[in-house]
């Protein structure tokens, strides 16, 4: 707790022939973050032909996956699957080197790809054909204004016939110019469309060279005349029935695709995962150094996993490896990847720390603290027993259903579960059950404070909590800086604020007795002086300005905790608004039908659910903000590099291999 996982650096040199096996072992274990090895004498390793093949097959198969997924008939869905998604079955694959794997993939592809491609090609070709027919129908609809048999609109041996559209205001000059150019040997038929003119020009083939530039000059857009005989109307009918036929064909082709998807979807996903992992494995190759016979790799791994990994490497290389495990040096402090380490109850909250940024190796990990403060603030802002209960039930179900995946949903719902417990406690303290619903219904609800009537007390409470939160932050910063030997920083940046806060507290508590206020003034004064010195030391000339702005920055951060009260009020307020509306409508009845009760119930349920959703979002955002902006601002950098192990992603496959 409070410290990230201890890391050690590992260096391995071994024979090239163990490379594939060793990398696969590390990939499956996912314990080492491999780093670039900078050796001048040796050359870098690079992907070989098989890795390249893996990359290109990965794209090919991902296309197949996409196509089949689009045609897969989904089973289930629904609420049950949302809470309790079934675990996907992991299929075993016996790994005997990348060459064999690629061969297997090729064998699989040669079987399945042609089938899929055939269906896909059929669907696309039908679709293009349909698009073409639709286009022709559109053209025919355009031509229907002319009411001429379309076969007359095609060029003959002697005559050139062009059909097309042109801007209405350009039409006249166009006709005139063509008349002039051809010496009047031209026939024009035209129909007005909206702001364009549909026109047919008939002229002699030998005038073509003279007419074409003119047509281009006026941006005459040619229309391809569809095939067939008869007037446009007749042809449209023919084309429409053709379209119907195609639609039927499409339907059938899609059925085929569905069958194909049912048969091969799981396989395709399985093989995709296999090659995708090979592709990922190849990305570390440029980080390795190699000679003709040997290769070397280096990386970071958590100390707790050292024995296991050492054992594994020795087994795979039959002991023919040079392995060096050493402590990180001071120069490497910046480079050490950070893996957070927390007890089980705080572990899911690491997500919140990671979203902001993990600590540096010599910094403290704030996860256990924000586990408490985040949940508490969330509860304070939501402050309703029933809302807490609703959230608790939903998140408890999600926690149960997703625990086995250890995914984002699990972590998030765990944080929500803890927060909702605080929400219930706070709700009970404030006597809030769907806002003031119980009060309106005539019950006597026990409460310590009322959100509205004791608003000022709540505000004081919020500000006191804020002060305590900030004080905690500065204290942690003070301790961390002292530990890292930065005494000046600790005293000037952190101790100063701690004293100022203590001064404020003493002032409030001891305002009655003269000695109390003396102490308060002394603490506050010393803190202020230290703070001013700190500003002068770090900023020099600008200090005067910054003292003012930073001091009010502190006041701003502190007042920012007023949002605890504002959001608590907002929750109670919306709930109250809904309750009052329901109360107003409750008594309404048309004749003997108590319509008011029905509408009132719907309004109540819908309104309260909306209220839970919007207020929970507000509580999440603002509780997080108080951690990130106000709290972390006092001591935390979050500049660390997160630990990104070289790890395979296995959802539907499992590798069986022995070295």
């Amino acid at each position, binding site marked *: 707790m409070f410290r990230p996982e201890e890391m050690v650096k590992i260096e391995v040199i071994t024979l090239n022939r163990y490379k594939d096996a060793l990398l696969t072992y590390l990939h499956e274990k996912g314990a080492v973050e491999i780093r670039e090895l900078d050796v001048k004498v040796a050359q870098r390793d690079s992907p070989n032909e098989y890795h390249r093949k893996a990359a290109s097959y990965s*794209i090919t198969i991902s296309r197949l996956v996409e196509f089949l997924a689009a045609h897969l008939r989904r089973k289930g869905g629904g609420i049950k699957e949302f809470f309790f998604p079934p675990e996907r079955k992991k299929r075993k694959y016996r790994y005997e080197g990348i060459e064999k794997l690629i061969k297997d993939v090729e064998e699989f592809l040669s079987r399945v790809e042609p089938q899929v491609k055939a269906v896909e090609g059929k669907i696309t070709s039908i679709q293009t054909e349909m698009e073409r027919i639709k286009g022709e129908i559109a053209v025919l609809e355009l031509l229907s204004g002319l009411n001429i048999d379309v076969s007359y609109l095609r060029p003959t041996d002697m005559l050139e016939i062009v059909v097309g559209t042109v801007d209405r205001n350009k039409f006249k000059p166009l006709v005139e110019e063509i008349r002039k150019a051809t010496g009047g040997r031209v026939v024009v038929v035209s129909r007005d469309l909206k702001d364009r003119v549909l026109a047919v020009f008939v002229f002699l083939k030998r005038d073509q060279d003279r007419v074409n530039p003119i047509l281009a*000059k006026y941006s005459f857009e040619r229309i391809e005349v569809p095939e067939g005989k008869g007037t446009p109307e007749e042809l449209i009918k023919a084309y429409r029935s053709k379209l119907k036929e195609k639609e039927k064909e499409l339907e059938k082709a899609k059925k085929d695709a569905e069958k194909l998807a049912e048969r091969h979807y799981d396989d395709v996903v399985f093989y995709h995962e296999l090659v995708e992992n090979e592709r990922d494995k190849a990305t570390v190759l440029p980080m390795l150094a190699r000679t003709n016979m040997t290769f070397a790799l280096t990386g970071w791994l958590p100390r707790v996993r050292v024995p296991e990994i050492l054992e594994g490497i020795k087994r795979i290389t039959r002991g023919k490896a040079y392995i060096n495990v050493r402590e990180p040096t001071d120069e490497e402090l910046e480079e050490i990847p950070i893996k957070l380490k927390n007890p089980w109850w705080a572990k899911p909250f690491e997500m919140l720390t990671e979203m902001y940024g993990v600590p540096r190796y010599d910094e403290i990990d704030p996860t256990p603290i924000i586990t408490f403060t985040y949940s508490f603030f969330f509860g304070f802002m939501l402050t309703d027993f029933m809302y807490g209960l609703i959230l608790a039930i939903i998140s408890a179900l999600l926690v149960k259903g997703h625990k086995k995946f250890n995914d984002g949903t699990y972590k998030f719902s765990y944080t929500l579960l803890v927060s909702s417990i605080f929400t219930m406690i706070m709700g009970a303290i404030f006597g809030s059950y769907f806002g003031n619903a119980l009060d309106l219904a005539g019950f006597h609800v026990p409460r310590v404070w009322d959100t509205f009537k004791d608003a000022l007390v709540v505000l004081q409470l919020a500000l006191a909590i804020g002060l305590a939160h900030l004080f905690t932050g500065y204290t942690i910063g003070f301790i961390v800086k002292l530990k890292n030997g930065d005494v000046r920083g600790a005293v000037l940046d952190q101790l100063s604020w701690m004293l100022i806060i203590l001064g404020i507290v003493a002032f409030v508590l001891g305002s009655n007795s003269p000695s109390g206020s003396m102490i308060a003034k002394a603490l506050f004064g010393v803190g202020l002086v230290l703070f001013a010195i700190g500003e002068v030391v770090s900023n020099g000339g600008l200090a005067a300005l910054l003292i003012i702005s930073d001091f009010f920055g502190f006041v701003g951060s502190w007042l920012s905790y007023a949002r605890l009260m504002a959001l608590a009020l907002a929750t109670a307020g919306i709930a109250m608004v809904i309750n009052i509306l329901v109360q107003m409508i409750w008594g309404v009845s048309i004749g003997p039908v108590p319509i008011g009760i029905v509408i009132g119930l719907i309004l109540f349920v819908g309104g309260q659910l909306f209220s839970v959703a919007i207020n929970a979002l507000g509580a999440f955002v603002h509780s997080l903000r108080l951690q990130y902006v106000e709290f972390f601002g006092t001591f935390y950098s979050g500049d660390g590099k997160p630990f990104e192990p070289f790890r395979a992603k296995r959802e539907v496959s499992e590798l069986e291999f022995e070295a």
Partner: protein
Amino acid sequence: METGAVSGILNTTLALIFTWVGYKTSKIIYKYTPYSYPNARIKAMESKLLTEQRFNELAESRNLQNFIVNLEDTDYRDYLAEVQEPDVESVEKALEKALAGTYELMARILPRRVSPFFRLLLEEWDVRNITSVVKAKLAGEPATDYIVEIGPMLPKVKAMAESKSMEEILVILEGTPYEEPYQRLLLGEIDVRTFETELYRMYYGKLLNYALSKKEEERTILEEFVRLRIDRMNILTVLRGKVAKLSAEEIRPMLIPGGSVKLDPLLHVEDLGMALAELDSTRYGPVIRDVREEVERDLGVLERALEGYIIERMNELNRFYPLSVATPLGYVLQKGREVKKLRAIAKLISDGLPPERIKELAGDVA
């Protein structure tokens, strides 16, 4: 004081506050709202630009069929779907169309007060196409090979390429702004190089006028963009001239007015090295310093460096004004670079070069 006076003061204050708040609010809303949709969409599109890793994988394609398959999970797919028999020309055309599509999308989704700028930008391809066609015609080569499939005048350009004589082209260009310089070219008043410069001058003049007609940050960004482009063009012209040992008087007519860098001192230096030294004190100094050695061998390196600088600068402006026209400008430049690189890779693949060599050469293109 009387109650009447107090409430009078109160009312006036209220009225003032409301007017001010209303004015400020409506200004903010007018300024940012129209960019909300397009810029968010463009950011999403930026995340789909191809990564270096993807380019490497594309370089490994070995043949054009695979190249197309490798692009199937991108937005190029719709354009490449039209390619039936994969050959370089049709792939290149499809890629160009994709780029044109990007510009058109920008013109469509951006607020009306700047969208015409992107249509104007497309005219650069008109200028390029027209000069290529004219040059090809003068040299008696088949002009259709030189056409890039972009530009608002594309149908006219195609008709020009198919025309049989120089006079026919004049007929086609009639009524467009390009008619006048072309007439002078036909009459022999100017040579083809001046014709080209003239066209570019018109193009950049239009862009600059448009940029200057805008207000506030839109003007700042557009103006910066246009001036950077003009500078890039001019610097390259001067340096190419210096390599070809042209005199100041010969180079001067080829320059385009409106750039931000003073070019006079540059014109009068002896050779390329000194010209580069002269540029060192300008804003392009740092850019050139990084590639100095290579530039002396190959000016293409400088062209890319300057292009990269413009993109970098647009990104900077983009960070400064997230909801402004800088985002789409930066994006179209990046997309242009991507298309250029893809075209190069496609070409190299069809030439049958090994993947390692393609990676190297494609890296040089953009």
